[in-house]
């Protein structure tokens, strides 16, 4: 084979190999999803309405098949009790799976702390879930790309690809991630992606008897959730990390962690 022949054949081989690659390019899922630029899921939590019943946590565990009694959960509710001496007492027994059945504050290891009613100056509940950050640190640190952000803003985990290194769990400032006790891979709230992508609400939104939890589309100016976010004074959690969380809170207090 002379040089000319070699070059000719090389071109044929390269072109032949480039063809299937180009075909792959056509069905790039990212581009397909980007065809819906009018969608960005957001969540709105109204802390004034939350009573800490824990129905959302129950519904979430059942809907998303996180073992019911396991001490991990995709969503949870925190109780804040602020006393006269300026101290903040926080607890979330079993993530508030069974609500808050005791007036005593759970301080871990089976110990509780009793607070007299007359010492309490303020008390409220704060539901927590994945913030589906615009700049998600968990996606950034995943070494194999098993966790990713969809075009509509939700961060998902590929259970077939996750190696279980735990770097994303370390990277999340909100502590929403954990290892699924059955699948042994990273697990987190995904706004019930299987439901919202079919036009339903998330399990927790449906379960909340007081509409403390709502989900909406930030790109739709007529969405009632978007209207609240745009027109009222809402706050986000841990802004200092630059993660740009997309769960907005009404009535967030400075004590909230």
């Amino acid at each position, binding site marked *: 084979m002379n040089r000319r022949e070699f070059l000719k054949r090389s071109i044929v081989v390269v072109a032949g190999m480039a063809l299937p690659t180009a075909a792959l390019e056509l069905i790039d899922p990212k581009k397909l999803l980007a065809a819906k630029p009018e969608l960005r899921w957001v969540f709105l939590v109204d802390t004034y309405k939350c009573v800490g019943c824990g129905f959302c946590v129950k519904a979430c565990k059942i809907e998303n098949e996180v073992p019911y009694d396991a001490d991990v959960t995709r969503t949870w509710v925190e109780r804040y009790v602020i006393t006269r001496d300026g101290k903040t007492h926080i607890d979330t027994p079993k993530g508030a799976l069974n609500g808050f059945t005791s007036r005593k504050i759970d301080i871990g290891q089976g110990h509780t702390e009793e607070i007299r009613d007359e010492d309490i100056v303020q008390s409220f509940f704060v539901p927590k879930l994945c913030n589906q950050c615009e700049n998600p*640190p968990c996606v*950034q*640190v995943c070494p*194999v790309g098993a966790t990713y952000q969809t075009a509509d803003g939700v961060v998902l985990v590929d259970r077939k690809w996750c190696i279980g*290194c735990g770097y994303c769990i370390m*990277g999340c400032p909100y*502590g929403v991630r*954990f290892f699924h006790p059955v699948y042994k891979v990273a697990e987190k709230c995904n706004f019930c992606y299987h439901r919202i992508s079919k036009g339903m609400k998330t399990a927790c939104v449906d379960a909340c008897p007081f509409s403390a939890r709502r989900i909406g589309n930030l790109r739709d100016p007529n969405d009632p959730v978007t209207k609240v976010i745009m027109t009222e004074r809402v706050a986000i959690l841990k802004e200092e990390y630059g993660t740009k969380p997309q769960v907005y809170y009404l009535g967030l207090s400075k004590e909230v*962690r």
Partner: protein
Amino acid sequence: MVHGEAWTIKEFFTYPNEYIYWTIQIVMYPFMTGLVAGAFVLSSLYHVFGIKQLKDIARFSLVFSFALLPVAMMPLMLHLQQPQRGIEVMMTPHFTSAIAAFGIVFSTYGMIVAAELWFVYRQYFVQTVQELKTKTNRTAWESFLVPLYSILTMGAWDISEHALEKDEKAVKILAGLGIPVACFLHGYAGFIFGSVKANALWMTPLMPVIFICSAVVSGIALCIVTYVVSMELRKFIFAWRRKLNPDLPTTAELKSVELHVVTMTVKYLIMFLILAITLELLDLIFRGYTAVKSWDILRSVIYEKDFTKIFILQYTCGNLIPFILLLFPRLTVRRAVLGALMVLLGVFMMRWNVVIGGQAFSSSFAGFMEYQLPIWPHDMETFKEGLFGALMVAVTPFVLFYFLSRILPVFGQKGGH
């Protein structure tokens, strides 16, 4: 049971999903890679900068670094929840993640060490094969060595003056190239922690530098200990064998531990130790001085919860006492070994205090978590992430080194470089 629940004790308010997810194996990981990098840097001091006093220990630490290399990967595999998918880090690296660089950096480094070893030992391979071929009554081991070494030469049989000079040059280049790569290998382990913005204790740009310095410190310390111990063991074994076979050389004729080698190595150890301590203290002072939001909880972890681990075990036993021991005039081999052992403890505790200490507080800054090292395993998980899993990782390099040194002798060799 949820992963992490078996060994985590929670106190006050922690988020429900928070556990100590990175345990003893992740302490072992930077500790082992640190030893790899440190051992390599030590050998390079001789090969690149021509520090003649280190000649004896250079060959030794190079082989030791090679033996440590596969072990740096072991703790990672042991801590993965899906170890069978670990290879994905190599196959589908996601480059915004610090861990994704592991495959590339690690294999580059492995290739450099392997190539350098080959150039160092090529002359020995060729000479041994030629020697053994003329021998009429070969032992089974020697008959095994002939084909093995023949393969290892990879057809490069030329050991003329000119060829050896070229070898030496190649070693020098590889060793020089290896230093930044070794530093990168370890600095990037520091980056893995330092870049986690969610963790108040880890996030500092000093982390990679601190990791490199302590890596070199631990690597040198382990080389001193292993060098002295194996030299002594060798003498001991020879003395025992001589009882049966008086023709063997006496212990006096054997090369023994050279004090000047140890003294010189200790000097470099102290140098890097000073650098490491300075940076660590700078970090601590800076945190206290700037006192940002996280300082309240960090202070209670550093000065209260982990006081013994940080100030007694790490700084006093691991830094201050060995520092005095090694700096005191008229250094003896025994004192150097004791000092080096304490330095190793210090570096191990530093890794512990970073990895476990970083998870000792909730990211809510309102609660604490404590890691209870599982001692007696009752399932696979408590074995892997417990005392015995860690011991397994710690012992493996020595086993590997034993087998490697059968093929690549590291002691008392004439010639070579």
